[in-house]
């Protein structure tokens, strides 16, 4: 891999940008791999990258039924944060945020991480107490969180109306939280993994798993059968469908999560603003678009579009808090299918089948977990044992009852 640098940019500029090498290879599919990863989204590609980098496994295929990063990795609202309530979640997601903080350098690819702060609002005294409890739990988890008064909120976000139908009683901010560019994250991992020799195979859908006496031996795909010593599933909303191929059941419901962007405007919002109770969050991308999201449509769906009622509710909440935004037009609206678990924490680690691993149940918050998800799953695949950071996130918790009921997982309540 030729590194990107100021020098390479200057050289290419003199060359009229005609000589840039392709970012990742388009290899021929081999008959056998040490590890096959199903799903070339952020989690799948990060897993492949850390397998190659940290564990020196190079004979890896990442299979993708559509195009690289075209699922939820390209559909989320690119927020990174680690303001979680329970110690297990905080440890895992802060590991992820720390990896994000060094990711541009690590991948030699600018992921445009902007730690502009993530503000969570309270609209009543009860909510303020709830938010104080949440912020204190974060501090106990050794992650910073700062309570802000309504005046401080107004100072930070001048366009906000703190005296509206949902009066702002205060909030808390995680200053290390923020946004990054989701496409850059997936492209960066793809490029770095490909340079290690990982085969990224697009337009290759897995149709069945080959299983022999409780052990997976390969996958059947639309491009033929592939043998694999180990297989890992990272398919977001379609986790249940993959688990069905392996004949086990998962505690997952697939639902659409909508997002939308406005037309681009000059910088006016310098923080990510979230309101868990009125179901909205908004940030401004580097392109100037306001990126808006809210709660999930609360019924099973695999249709990658959201319902109008929820969209209306979401927009109404944003406009109530930011009256100036009423003049904007929406440019795009879309939905991704998210796999939500009963405790809104992910399902990671081993499965009932030998040599089959799972990384799913990311629900509405998988993007921020990409680096740590890849890092810990790579360890789990190599050692056939859950990484210490994800021990508690296994499927077994639904039988033992040790759920990690993470209300903070979604950022908005469901």
């Amino acid at each position, binding site marked *: 891999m030729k590194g990107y640098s100021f020098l390479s940019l200057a050289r290419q500029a003199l060359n009229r940008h005609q000589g840039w090498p392709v970012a990742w290879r388009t290899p021929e599919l081999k008959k056998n791999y040490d590890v096959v990863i199903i799903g070339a989204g952020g989690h799948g590609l990060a897993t492949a990258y850390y397998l190659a980098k940290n564990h020196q496994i190079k004979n890896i295929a990442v299979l993708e039924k559509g195009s690289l990063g075209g699922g939820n990795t390209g559909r989320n609202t690119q927020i990174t944060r680690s303001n979680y309530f329970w110690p297990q979640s905080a440890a895992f997601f802060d590991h992820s945020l720390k990896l994000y903080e060094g990711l541009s350098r690590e991948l030699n690819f600018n992921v445009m991480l902007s730690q502009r702060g993530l503000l969570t609002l309270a609209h009543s005294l009860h909510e303020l107490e709830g938010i104080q409890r949440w912020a204190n739990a974060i501090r106990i988890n050794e992650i910073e969180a700062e309570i802000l008064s309504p005046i401080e909120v107004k100072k930070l976000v001048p366009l906000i109306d703190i005296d509206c139908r949902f009066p702002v009683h205060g909030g808390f901010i995680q200053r290390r939280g923020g946004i990054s560019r989701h496409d850059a994250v997936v492209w960066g991992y793809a490029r770095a993994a490909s340079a290690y020799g990982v085969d990224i195979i697009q337009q290759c859908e897995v149709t069945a798993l080959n299983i022999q006496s409780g052990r997976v031996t390969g996958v059947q795909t639309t491009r033929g059968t592939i043998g694999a010593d180990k297989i890992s599933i990272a398919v977001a909303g379609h986790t249940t469908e993959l688990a069905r191929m392996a004949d086990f059941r*998962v505690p997952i*419901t*697939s639902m659409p999560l909508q997002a939308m962007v406005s037309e681009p405007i000059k910088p006016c919002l310098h923080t990510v603003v979230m309101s868990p109770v009125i179901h909205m969050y908004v940030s401004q991308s580097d392109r100037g678009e306001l990126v808006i999201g809210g709660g999930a449509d609360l019924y099973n*769906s*695999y*249709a990658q579009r959201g*319902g109008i*009622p929820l969209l209306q509710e979401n927009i109404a909440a944003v406009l109530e808090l930011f009256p100036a935004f009423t003049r904007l037009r929406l440019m795009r609206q879309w939905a991704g299918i998210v796999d939500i678990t009963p405790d809104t924490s992910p399902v990671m680690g081993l499965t009932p089948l030998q040599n089959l691993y799972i990384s799913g149940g990311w629900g509405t918050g998988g993007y921020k977990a990409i680096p740590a998800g890849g890092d810990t799953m790579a360890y789990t695949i190599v050692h056939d044992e859950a990484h210490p950071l994800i021990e508690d996130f296994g499927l077994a918790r*639904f*039988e033992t009852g040790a759920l990690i009921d993470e209300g903070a997982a979604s950022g908005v309540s469901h």
Partner: protein
Amino acid sequence: MLRIDCPWCGTRDEVEFSFGGESHLTRPTLDASDAVWSDYLFNKDNPKGIHFERWMHRFGCGRWFNVARDTLTHEIHAVYEMGAAKPDLAVKDPDS
């Protein structure tokens, strides 16, 4: 927007209804193992296709009923009462 045909009130917009998750679940006996209870409580069918599910007409008659809905197209194939068996949808295949 779903348009749901409440068996008692007629066709209304989805905002009047609450979703109640998968239907036709049978509570295990009290001496069931942890694995059986866990499966009953947490695991879902979550199909990509026809889903048999419960809805309640929250801002209407307040009654529960079953719906057979395609999770890929959102098309509602059948509405039937609580306690009734799953309808045979073979004759209602949209492609036929």
